């Protein structure tokens, strides 16, 4: 019983921490992009104010499916937090967490898809069809990488993969398999929907895509979902390729480094069209991932 | 590469212009009877005057006539031709130039909306710029916009004194 309460308390702590860190990262990203564009940009704590304002506004619902979609998106993402080791914090670390995380991420985006279909706006349905095709695009190379890692270290739990890279920083996967780390970085940008792979929320084509009909608290929930997704994907990348960390601060610092790199990389590229994006994923990243996998197997 | 004079000879020979005038360097204006304007358009188009800038309409209220002006330009002679013709104001009917220049359909639609000129053969003449407009076509000279505005909208009264009086 005590262990249950401890777990629940620990889980709440992780959720609040992930949301706060995610929003902080979004604020930092806006600041970096602003600096690149020779302007000041909003204060770093601006996303917190946005969320507070959004929860204060009225919002129009488009029926039960629309509400449930937003809740499912947020719920799916929070559920994924159970299985990601954030530095030393670790809730569940049994075998198979890698695959479970991939599945739960898909649940979150399907929830958002259901919500947007409920909203009935054609631009939203175009946006969500783009998001799902893009997911198809980056899942392929990502799964190849994961399988080759699992095969290499004979364990499919993230904690196990992280432990395998312990010791000096030399045997991080980043240095053991640099090509795979590069491909994973590109896939990470695709997963987070940052430029040049943000065709699904293209404001100038389909008016900010899936979230076109959600104002007020729905947009607030989707903003929270986005911030937790950022933390999850960054944590996944750091665990698999930068050897995790023993305490939370160096873990967050590593995540910050990867995040800044992804933002800078993204701010100078226009966005792909959706089929060019998927073609790109299936051409270079998939090829390198398969080569790396063969290298590991042989 | 014709200059203005050779162009005028060509026009005098082939078309029956009522009046021809060289307005300025590289600018010629030709007045024609309504019935042989469309034929003149296709004739000039075959003689390197392929560019139709626009079709303008001028409402001569006192003389009871609409004047349609077709502005052509040649990429060889670099000369501007303004083909003018006058049609009766009351029936205000004219043939369409859609077959010669498909884009003329929209210039005619614009003139129809603002002057009420009917273009036979152009079936796409419904409203484009204005939205459910029930009054006189606004660009006609007998439509007074100030009087229309005074009875359509009230003015903001700055403590008693109206904006326009």
């Amino acid at each position: 019983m005590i262990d249950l309460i401890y777990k629940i308390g620990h889980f709440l702590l992780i959720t609040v921490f992930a949301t706060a860190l995610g929003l902080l990262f979004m604020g930092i990203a806006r600041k970096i992009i602003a600096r690149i564009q020779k302007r000041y940009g909003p204060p770093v704590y601006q996303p917190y104010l946005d969320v507070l304002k959004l929860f204060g506004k009225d919002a129009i619902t488009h029926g039960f499916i629309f509400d449930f979609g937003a809740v499912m998106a947020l719920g799916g993402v929070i559920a994924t937090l159970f299985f990601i080791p954030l530095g030393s914090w670790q809730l569940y670390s049994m075998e198979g967490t890698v695959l479970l995380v991939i599945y739960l991420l898909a649940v979150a985006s399907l929830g958002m898809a259901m919500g947007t279909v409920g909203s009935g706006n054609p631009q939203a349905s175009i946006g969500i069809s783009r998001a799902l095709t893009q997911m198809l695009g980056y899942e392929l190379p990502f799964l190849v990488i994961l399988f080759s890692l699992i095969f290499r270290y004979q364990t499919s739990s993230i904690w196990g993969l992280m432990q395998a890279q312990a010791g000096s920083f030399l045997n991080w996967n980043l240095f053991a398999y640099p090509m795979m780390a590069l491909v994973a970085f590109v896939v990470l940008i695709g997963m987070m929907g940052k430029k040049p792979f943000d065709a699904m929320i293209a404001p100038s084509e389909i008016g900010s895509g899936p979230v076109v009909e959600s104002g007020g608290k729905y947009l607030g929930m989707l903003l929270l979902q986005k911030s937790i997704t950022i933390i999850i994907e960054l944590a996944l990348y750091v665990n698999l390729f930068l050897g995790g960390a023993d305490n939370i601060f160096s873990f967050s610092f590593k995540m910050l480094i990867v995040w800044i790199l992804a933002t800078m990389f993204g701010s100078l590229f226009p966005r792909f069209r959706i089929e060019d994006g998927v073609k790109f994923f299936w051409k270079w990243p998939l090829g390198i991932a398969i080569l790396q996998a063969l290298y590991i197997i042989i | 590469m014709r200059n203005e004079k050779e162009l005028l000879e060509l026009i005098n020979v082939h078309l029956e212009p009522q009046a021809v005038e060289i307005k300025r360097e590289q600018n010629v204006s030709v007045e024609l009877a309504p019935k042989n304007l469309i034929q003149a358009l296709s004739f000039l188009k075959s003689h390197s005057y392929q560019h139709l800038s626009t079709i303008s309409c001028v409402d001569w209220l006192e003389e009871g006539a609409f004047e349609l002006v077709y502005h052509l330009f040649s990429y060889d002679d670099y000369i501007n031709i303004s083909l003018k013709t006058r049609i009766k104001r009351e029936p205000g009917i004219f043939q369409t130039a859609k077959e010669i220049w498909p884009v003329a359909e929209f210039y005619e639609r614009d003139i129809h909306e603002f002057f009420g000129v009917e273009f036979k053969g152009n079936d796409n003449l419904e409203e484009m710029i204005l939205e459910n407009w029930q009054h006189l076509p606004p660009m006609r000279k007998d439509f007074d916009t100030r009087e229309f505005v005074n009875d359509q909208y009230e003015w903001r009264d700055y403590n008693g004194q109206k904006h326009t009086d």
Partner: protein
Amino acid sequence: MNNNFVKGSWQEILDWAQNKSINMLHYCTGCGAIELPPTMTSRYDMSRFGIGPAATPRQADLLLVTGYLSTKTLRRLIYTYEQMQAPKFVVGFGSCTINGGMYWDSYNTIKQLDKYLPVEMYIAGCMPRPEAILDGLLKLKKMINNGEADGYQRYQDNLEFYHQNQEAVLGEVQRTQ
């Protein structure tokens, strides 16, 4: 939509949050919209005050009426305004929204904006400069913070007045509620 905007302390916090982060609807209704890009981008940068563009009326709080309004735009502006969510504000640019401005005798533009939509403030200038726009928006933020910007309440309270004026100019207007 609940009409009883009770003035509790929770409302003050929301007003404070609202003035810190305003989403401006990306809708260039008139000629004044040419001065919005310079205000949004590097040189004058309105985003340092937390004001950023929003693509759809659902996510927007601020509706800028940048200059004159033709009747065709007015109809779409009313639909847009009614799609926006409760704490929403309208700011008019230049004299065209006050008394018709330079197009006072045009048959196709409306003469007074605040007969059709509740306007919080007007920014002077026949196309106000970016500095004037920023100054106006900063003043708007102060008004929001101490609760004076209650245009949406005025719209709710005398809905009949606004609807009559709109129908007088536009004929029939689709109503959502």
